């Protein structure tokens, strides 16, 4: 058994999180992925680096790839890309919309070399519109897409909004979305022989994480629009961000009820997450609550839970199939029983930094195997080999290094 993308060649122009994460998924699925980096490396290699040009976050986003350094503003580097393209099935690219053309690696140019090329383009805000040429990262996209304000975190004291920090959700999700666009376009090429360009953006992904929230609905929105009007009015009157968030949160009753929230226990915390009529009834029965419990009754429920261990509470709730879970830190998840039982972590050896664990791709196939991936490549590890395969001599490669075309 081999991966479903065995034999597919991917050329990746990427940095930071989104496109690298997408390219890594394709490598796990069996594709050969060649990552093009500037001579001093993807800037993410330097983000909290623990060895020169090696950071943990980079190593978690680039396993199973080869690394080719190219200084794309040089004509010789652009020629190397053009020489590679006939063997390439898929180009992944995440630059600002004006950049690919400057480097002669835009879809028009590359698809003229290979007609059935699949070219998946990820921008921050889309290729059109007033923001198209703005540089953008996950945080900026959280800001303009509504995610950050909807999360409603505010800085203690000063009160400004805060970034969603548990994960760069627009980045990671865009990586998966990009990979998904590739496999869908590969399916289309297999059925019709056609290549194409696919456009994705961090902004579009962020909107797709909020479908019912952004949706406007003539019949359903009366209550929501009243809250919106109140918020806009207070905003015009000069209200601070924290107040605007509070106006919005008061309108959603989800946050303060007793059957869908977290509770402190003797040794940690659990969530009770009843969301059906039956589950809510089961919670009320378990904790002796009436249909419309008052604050005193809910305080008694909190006290009962805080006197027990998390395990005891979880057992009680799971017995009645009430959705529940312990509340955990990420840095204890490498020992979690579900993680171990499903063998989601595996060990591998990096060329220069030694042993590490990595997390498997979130897919399992009955007829295809996932590739057993190698660790992320040291910067430019594969440059010489790739150039030799294009019939460049040792002397020519040395001259490229001299001229800064490659590093």
């Amino acid at each position: 058994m081999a991966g479903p993308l065995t034999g597919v060649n991917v050329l990746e122009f990427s940095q930071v999180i989104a496109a690298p994460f997408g390219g890594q998924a394709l490598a796990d699925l069996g594709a050969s992925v060649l990552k093009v980096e500037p001579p001093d490396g993807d800037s993410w290699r330097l983000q909290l680096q623990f060895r020169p040009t090696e950071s943990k976050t980079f190593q978690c986003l680039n396993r199973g790839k080869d690394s080719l350094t190219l200084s794309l503003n040089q004509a010789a580097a652009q020629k190397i890309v053009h020489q590679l393209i006939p063997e390439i099935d898929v180009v992944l690219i995440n630059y600002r919309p004006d950049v690919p053309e400057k480097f002669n690696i835009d879809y028009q140019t590359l698809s003229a070399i290979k007609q059935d090329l699949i070219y998946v383009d990820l921008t921050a805000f889309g290729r059109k519109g007033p923001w198209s040429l703005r540089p953008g990262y996950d945080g900026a996209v959280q800001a303009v897409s509504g995610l950050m304000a909807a999360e409603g975190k505010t800085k203690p004291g000063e009160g400004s909004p805060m970034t969603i920090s548990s994960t760069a959700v627009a980045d990671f999700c865009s990586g998966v979305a990009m990979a998904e666009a590739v496999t869908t376009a590969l399916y289309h090429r297999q059925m019709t022989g056609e290549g194409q360009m696919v456009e994705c953006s961090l902004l579009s992904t962020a909107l797709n994480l909020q479908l019912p929230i952004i949706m406007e609905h003539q019949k359903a929105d009366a209550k929501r629009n009243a809250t919106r009007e109140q918020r806009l009015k207070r905003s015009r009157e000069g209200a601070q961000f924290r107040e605007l968030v509070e106006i919005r949160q008061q309108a959603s009753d989800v946050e303060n009820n007793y059957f869908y929230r977290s509770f402190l226990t003797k040794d940690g915390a659990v969530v009770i997450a009843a969301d059906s009529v039956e589950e809510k009834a089961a919670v009320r029965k378990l904790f002796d609550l009436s249909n419309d419990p008052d604050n005193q009754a809910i305080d008694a429920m909190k006290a009962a839970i805080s006197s027990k261990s998390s395990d005891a509470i979880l057992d009680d709730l799971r017995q009645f199939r009430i959705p529940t879970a312990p509340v955990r830190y990420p840095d204890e998840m490498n020992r979690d029983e579900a993680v171990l039982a499903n063998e989601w972590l595996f060990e591998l050896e990096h060329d220069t930094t030694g042993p590490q664990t990595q997390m498997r791709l979130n897919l399992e196939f009955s007829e295809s195997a996932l590739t057993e991936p190698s660790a992320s490549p040291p910067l430019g590890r594969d440059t010489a080999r790739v150039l030799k395969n294009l019939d460049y001599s040792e002397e020519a490669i040395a001259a490229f290094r001299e001229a800064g075309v490659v590093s």
Partner: protein
Amino acid sequence: MSGIFSELRVIELSADVTGSMAGQICADRAAEVIKIEPPGGDVLRHVDSYDSGESKLYESLNRGKQSVVLDYDQSDGLKLVKALCDTADVVIASQPKRPLPSELSYETLKIQNSKLVYLDINAFGRNGNWADSASNDLVMQAYAGNMLSEGKTEPDQITPRAIVSTQMSEYVTAFYALLGISSALYHRARTGVGQEVSTSKLLTMLSIQSARIVTNDLADKKVIGFRNRLLELRTEGASLAKIKSERGKTAPRVINAFYRPYQTRDGAVFVGALTRNLRDKARGALNTTLLGRDDPNYDTRNDEYYDNALRQQAEIEAYLKEKTTEEWIGILEASGVPTGEITFPEDLYNSEQLLENSYIAELDHTSGRQIHVMPHAQFSAFPDPEITAAPSLGRDTTRILSEIEND
């Protein structure tokens, strides 16, 4: 109808956001998606419904589908669902509260339909004690560590609060689902063989924070003590208050002034200087000499150093309040620093950026006009996808059933 999936029939057996979203992406690509709903209708129809069995949540996630009401708890209903699955190219199975009957498992369905692609969306993976537990997004974000990592709390400063901007475990898993479906369809187009693909919501939540979970002895030197101490506290059965207090004492103090939102005179703006080069530009725009992490003598453990950095950050906060958001966006844009206005999601319906990129569009539904978020990927082979609104309950039951009865 034309689209990449226009030749495909998808049967959706889902009772959650993930399965509905996966089905919707297929429908947006012109697959014939038949959603099997129980006699009372899909659970999503009953979340904040504006009319009996009609909700915004359902309508935002079920565009372009056929609605067929069948009860597979009854043997007649089960037979009909099985017969429909025998005609399917793809089955999407996502039941977070209870398993499907074995007649609808891949093992059974593949006997009649060897080319079937069967997508199993599960919560905790297929193995381990948690495998069959009831789940939803709150459960996933608690169990996987995302919720504590995000750091929101109740006013007591200890009880964790949920992430509310998006149901990450549900939406991001839907993108993995499509990566699985299209990879398997590509494999089928190449080999003629169908297969089962599975994806897990828990692994989604772990994957988007993987660098905090995987281990690497060299990279982890500074955090290993922190990680080990947590394990000790867990073994001792420490309360969350105690754990938080201990982690607070040993957690590194961070100055992050260049990648965060700030309040302005009339709102809030994001400053997105993620790399060193951008931070140099941001210092000029924000009129500060604060070096932060770029200081070779960066030492936030030193109280005097830390207090001084905080004071400089407070000066930036005050400076930002002197001008409007629009003025700041102009200044930051001219300096080349990524930026954007902090916007509430309900205010995006008339955004020029969204409209110009076709990220939102109007659809006609029986309840009236709706504005929807459009698909995350735009394929050049199908520049104008035909996207239609969600069906009323059971709209297509008679037509679809007469088709199988006539066979």
